[in-house]
């Protein structure tokens, strides 16, 4: 009996974890989509015609089992990267993604050299 109860809870736990891992959060997607005809609003925040249509399409695609990446890829194909607030890393925008890190490291090196020089004096 005890073994059955343990197996039951393990199975339930496994299903819950699976559901959390594989479910696609529509709100997260809609917040990352720009309403193209609005002033600085995401699709999630807008009630415009365009935003409402995108909401329906995203919901349909989630129901069809599409992943978050597939949904973004579809919309980027149709509207360009401008539609997503967080564009995917690619060869066109890699400088934009890497620049903060490069600036951080370069700044660190400059400060290090500056301090080292001051110590030597």
């Amino acid at each position, binding site marked *: 009996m005890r073994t059955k109860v343990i197996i039951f809870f393990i199975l339930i736990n496994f299903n819950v974890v699976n559901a959390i891992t594989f479910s696609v959060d529509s709100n997260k997607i809609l917040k990352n989509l720009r309403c193209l005809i609005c002033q600085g609003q995401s699709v999630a925040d807008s009630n415009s015609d365009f935003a409402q*249509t995108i909401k329906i*399409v995203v919901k349909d695609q989630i129901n069809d089992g599409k992943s978050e990446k597939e949904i973004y890829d579809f*919309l980027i*194909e149709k509207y360009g990267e401008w539609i997503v607030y967080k564009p995917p890393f690619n060869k066109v925008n890699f400088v934009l993604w890497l620049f903060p890190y490069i600036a951080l490291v370069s700044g660190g090196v400059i400060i290090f050299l500056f301090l080292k020089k001051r110590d030597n004096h």
Partner: protein
Amino acid sequence: MQKKIIKSSIILFLIFIIGVFFVGLNKNSIYDTKNLVGQKITKIQLERFNDKRIITEDDLKKNNFTLINFWASWCAPCRDEHPILIKLNDEKNLKLLGVNFKDKKSNALEFLKDLGDPYDDLARDELGKQSINFGIYGIPESILINKNLVIIKKFIGPISKNDYDDIKNIVRQ
């Protein structure tokens, strides 16, 4: 040596910043979806206005050129472009496919009765879902495609006299 490194880093940084501003400020900041030109349209599933049959890619492949026009009776600029669409209907090489967008059927029919029906085929996109597949974000918008379903030109807003000339030249070639 260290001074040199610092100096060159600062110069490189300034060049980078100036470069970013130069490219950024010279870029057209008005958003459009004209970058779809050259892409092939796929997964066409448009419901016919009258009999609910589905218009697919195979239907459009039969035409040398198709102008897909998204319109609605509540859209004022659609009225402006309507006479041009009627003139385009005379082009032998071109078929006009109208997609009635988020509209009441009765209003759409009245619109066509009042202003004339330029369309060879008429479809309906009641919820606007199909329009996303065509990269539409406002109406009127029109897409000129060829036999291979490749987008030749995209018209955002009402079709103008210049657009009419362009379309005429393309389909008569």
